[in-house]
């Protein structure tokens, strides 16, 4: 018996075969990476937009009036401990394997961080500045949109960014419930035991999340007034002895 039979042949695994296969980079077809990427971005932004349209007005209202603060804080905490994977599968099991129950789950997950951070942002505005705005004769809506919102913008955007990352991540695992997007590569690869496809999906999803986060940071720098930016970082370092400012912005992936 030759020795070669005792040593199991090590299969040549090409980890990057799928990612660098040009055939997967054309539009159209099930294995098309660009199609999946665009799908992922579209669903993610759609869910974030709808979630923000619901959460922003409520957060502004609660922050401006100070009424119902417990809703904003409680919802923020609830959203952080809610297992995202469970919510997706719950809604799909209840309503059937369609796109809209998954989108509904994504919208539901986008709401708590945006609402809680919007509320926290408006509450963090220096009351003296609000008084000054009122004293200048601003109407309530002017106070809100010309004084409070610009100063609360860093926290409001941090809520939107954390919702964006959470929706991106949850859209990925939703592929398990037949949802489209880049998660398909991961889930299909797992089912077919094709690790190069799994890895391609993992790398692309990670890159997408990093790029989206980077772009939203760039938008934040562009829209936040330089004066507000400096002040809020200074205040944040001082306030960090009590609770770190990052706490509210953190959500599970």
């Amino acid at each position, binding site marked *: 018996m030759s020795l070669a039979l005792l040593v199991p042949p090590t299969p040549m695994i090409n980890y990057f075969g799928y990612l660098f296969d040009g055939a997967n980079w054309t539009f159209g077809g099930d294995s098309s990476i660009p199609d999946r990427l665009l799908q992922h971005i579209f669903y993610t932004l759609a869910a974030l937009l709808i979630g923000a349209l619901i959460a922003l007005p409520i957060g502004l209202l609660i922050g401006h009036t100070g009424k119902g603060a417990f809703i904003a804080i409680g919802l923020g905490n*609830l959203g952080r*401990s809610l*297992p995202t994977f469970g919510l997706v599968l719950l809604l799909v099991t209840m309503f059937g394997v369609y796109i809209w129950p998954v989108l509904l789950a994504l919208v539901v997950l986008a709401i708590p961080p945006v609402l809680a951070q919007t509320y926290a942002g408006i509450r963090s505005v220096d009351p003296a500045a609000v008084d000054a705005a009122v004293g200048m004769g601003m109407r309530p809506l002017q106070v809100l949109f010309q004084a409070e919102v610009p100063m609360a913008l860093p926290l409001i955007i941090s809520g939107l960014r954390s919702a964006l990352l959470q929706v991106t991540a949850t859209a990925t*695992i939703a592929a398990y419930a037949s949802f489209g997007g880049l998660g398909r590569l991961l889930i299909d690869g797992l089912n077919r035991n094709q690790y190069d496809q799994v890895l391609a999906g*993992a790398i692309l999803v990670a890159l997408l999340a990093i790029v989206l986060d980077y772009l939203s940071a760039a938008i934040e720098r562009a829209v936040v007034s330089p004066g507000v930016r400096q002040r809020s970082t200074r205040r944040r370092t001082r306030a960090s002895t009590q609770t770190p400012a990052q706490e509210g912005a953190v959500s599970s992936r």
Partner: protein
Amino acid sequence: MITYVRNNYPDIVSDLVQHLWLALIPVALGALLALPIGYLAVRKGRRLYQPIINVGAILYSIPSLALFLMIPVIIGVGYLSPLNVLIGLTLYSMALLTRTVADALVSVEGEATQAAAAMGYRPIAQLVGVELPMAAPVLFAGLRVATVANISLVSVGALVGAGGLGNLFTGGFQLGFIEPIIVGIVLSMLLAALCDVALVLLQRQLTPWTRTGARA
């Protein structure tokens, strides 16, 4: 619902126990790793601060399933090994807590640390004896966030072979029953709330001085 729980009691308990371990071990490991890295970022030249924080932020922005499935390539285990979930969650906790440790150490700089140095504390003794106790409120806030985040994340691991209560989600989905999914969600959130309360109580035990002084 009650019938379901009664019939599947042992499975649910074992999922719950697995969930707890998969969530808490990474927090402990992440904290152990975050302490030296955070210390390095603040005390050994502030030039390291921003790069370390940036790497942590990038790491934390990677979606969990993608992170879990990139680890097998690096450490060379099968992609259904529970190690992937453990290491992935450890990396998240480490990224989160490094930021916490660094911010905490910055927040305690001042008279007390100068006094400690003047009294002859060596750097490590000063860190353990003075700075970390003073930074306890910030450190615990970070630990609570990391713990709650991990508990809600573990269930994603059900897709790659180690999911704790996530097994109830996939099981319920495959069979078309919502009972297991609801039980899993409720237990996961209860677990998060209980661990959060436990950390608050532990913090009160460890930092009795915060209760006597003026509290904000």
